């Protein structure tokens, strides 16, 4: 006769049961999809795989809903405390029941009380319709999760790792996070599934096309980073966190500095011809600590580069025009991309480095109809109201509102530094001469004479906007040799560390959205 279990044995067995998650066939399905089981994800995520879990016995009495399909845990990443919620897709496809939602709300409340970052490991089919009265409309229903996210935004870092679907209302979890890391092929985000789209509006579309990871990271901008495996996603989240303080009251941690990547000097990278393209990544590499660029939205609006980096070990946020893509012109999407990135950095005391080579905002019917003025205004508002140290470097051209968007002198950068290649103007010489002398140019009949006239006027214009003249008028604070730029930036960021200003006193602004 088998002896009766002790209380401890009973507890251990029950915990083991919960830890095993859903049925074997669903574990098998995870393997087929190259997905990890939720507890294995947590093992990889936390330092030494250690974490404390709350609500493990949630919905224990249901019998087949271990932990009610979500693990909520607290542990350390890079030695810093973080809170985590992680869906278990082996249990009813990771759907949300009443206790699932309550657990998510509680871990958010813990993050708020401890003022520590929170990570959302999302892999969920959405609401459990059968439980809707207990989890959808009520005060502590799913809406409260998003309400809490809005409240936590800017208080603590919020990170979403999207391993599977994030459907319908659930899609707002990534939407309210600071960064969304998506696993190619598996991650998706959509309000209505392709099946629903076909039924309700008659559209036939694949999931990948409508809400896939690649689409969101390159077209919609809802995703910030496309990765190819869950391990890569977890590594990225750990690295991302290393650039951030635990909350808005702390500052990012400085590490030991590194030399810049070896390569051509800035002087050789920047072409003399203002209109010829070059690769801004090479310029960034020559300024930051080797290997420190953590790019955000690399595939989205690549005419502008945004990324976290280190300079002499200090964290900085880099916003740089990319003349190699679309001439570095600012578009609707690039404006949005920069606006969010600037807000992210400013919220967590990350100083900003603007590298300008910008012909201006795009013009034409297409962008006007898309509201480029409204989107550009968002960028200018975010840049203008950022109170962290801001350094504006005019690498080459800064024309029109492009100068404004890239923290030009009027927006109180701590300094505006020009390279000798800098050209600041309402517009470039070609456009300006056309604008001012258009009638006169047309009147000259001899083509040679006409060309000579245009040439002469362009030359006069170039002299008018000569960078030494702008320095003489105190428009730029200094002109720096490209070879010395890195050192100047390291020194200045170190010197600006004590900056503390209040931008404006009011309830809150009414900026364009």
């Amino acid at each position, binding site marked *: 006769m088998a002896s009766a279990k002790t209380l401890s044995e009973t507890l251990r067995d029950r915990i083991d049961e919960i830890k095993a998650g859903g049925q074997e066939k669903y574990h098998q399905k995870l393997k087929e999809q190259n997905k990890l089981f939720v507890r294995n994800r947590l093992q990889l995520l936390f330092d030494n795989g250690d974490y404390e879990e709350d609500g493990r016995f949630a919905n224990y009495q249901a019998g087949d809903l271990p932990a009610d399909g979500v693990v909520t845990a607290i542990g350390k990443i890079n030695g810093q405390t973080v809170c985590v919620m992680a869906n278990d897709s082996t249990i009813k496809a990771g759907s949300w029941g009443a206790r699932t939602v309550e657990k998510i709300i509680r871990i958010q409340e813990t993050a708020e009380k401890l003022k520590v970052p929170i990570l959302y490991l999302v892999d969920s089919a959405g609401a459990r319709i059968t439980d809707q009265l207990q989890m959808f409309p009520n005060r502590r229903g799913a809406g409260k999760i998003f309400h809490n996210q809005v409240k936590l935004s800017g208080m603590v870092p919020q990170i979403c790792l999207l391993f599977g679907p994030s459907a319908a209302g659930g899609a707002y979890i990534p939407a309210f996070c600071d960064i969304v890391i998506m696993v190619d092929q598996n991650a998706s985000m959509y309000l209505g599934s392709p099946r629903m789209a076909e039924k309700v509006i008659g559209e036939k579309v694949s999931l990948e096309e409508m809400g896939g990871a690649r689409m969101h990271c390159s077209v919609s901008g809802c995703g910030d980073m496309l990765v190819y495996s869950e391990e890569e996603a977890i590594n990225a989240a750990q690295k991302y966190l290393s650039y951030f303080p635990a909350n808005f009251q702390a500052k990012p941690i400085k590490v030991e500095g590194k030399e810049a990547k070896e390569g051509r000097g800035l002087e050789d990278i920047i072409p003399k011809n203002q*209109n*010829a*393209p070059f690769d801004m990544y090479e310029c960034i590499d020559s300024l930051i600590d080797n290997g420190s660029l953590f790019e955000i939205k690399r595939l989205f609006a690549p005419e502008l580069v945004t990324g976290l980096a280190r300079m002499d070990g200090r964290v900085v946020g880099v916003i740089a025009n990319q*003349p*190699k*893509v*679309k*001439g*570095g*012109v600012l*578009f609707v999407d690039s404006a949005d991309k920069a606006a969010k990135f600037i807000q992210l950095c400013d919220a967590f005391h990350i100083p900003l480095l603007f590298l300008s080579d910008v*012909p*201006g905002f*795009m*013009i*034409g019917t*297409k962008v006007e109809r898309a509201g480029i003025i409204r989107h550009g205004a968002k960028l200018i508002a975010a840049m203008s109201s950022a109170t962290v140290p801001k350094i504006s470097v005019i690498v080459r051209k800064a024309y029109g509102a492009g100068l404004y968007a890239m923290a030009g002198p009027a927006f109180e950068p701590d300094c505006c530094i020009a390279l000798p290649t800098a050209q600041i103007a309402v517009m*470039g010489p*070609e*456009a300006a001469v056309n604008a001012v002398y258009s009638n006169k140019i047309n009147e000259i009949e001899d083509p040679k004479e006409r060309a000579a006239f245009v040439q002469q006027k362009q030359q006069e214009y170039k002299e008018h906007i000569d960078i030494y003249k702008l320095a003489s008028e105190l428009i730029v604070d200094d002109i720096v040799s490209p070879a010395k730029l890195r050192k100047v930036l390291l020194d200045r960021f170190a010197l600006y560390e004590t900056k503390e200003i209040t931008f404006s006193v009011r309830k809150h602004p009414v900026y364009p959205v």
Partner: protein
Amino acid sequence: MKEITASMAGTVLNIMATTGDDVTEGQEVLMLESMKMEIPVEASVAGKVAEVRVSIGDFVNEGDILITLE
């Protein structure tokens, strides 16, 4: 059939590929001028040029087909 399209609105400044050319992925096949900038257009895939649909000086809108590959 693969299509190479304009990344933004502008005019065709230069065409560096002709019908029958083999182009490699990432090769610059055309130069647009927009906002007074030179905008290189690269082949997104390798292939043989089937047709060049534009001429120098043409205005093209974002998304317009410039070159088709076999």
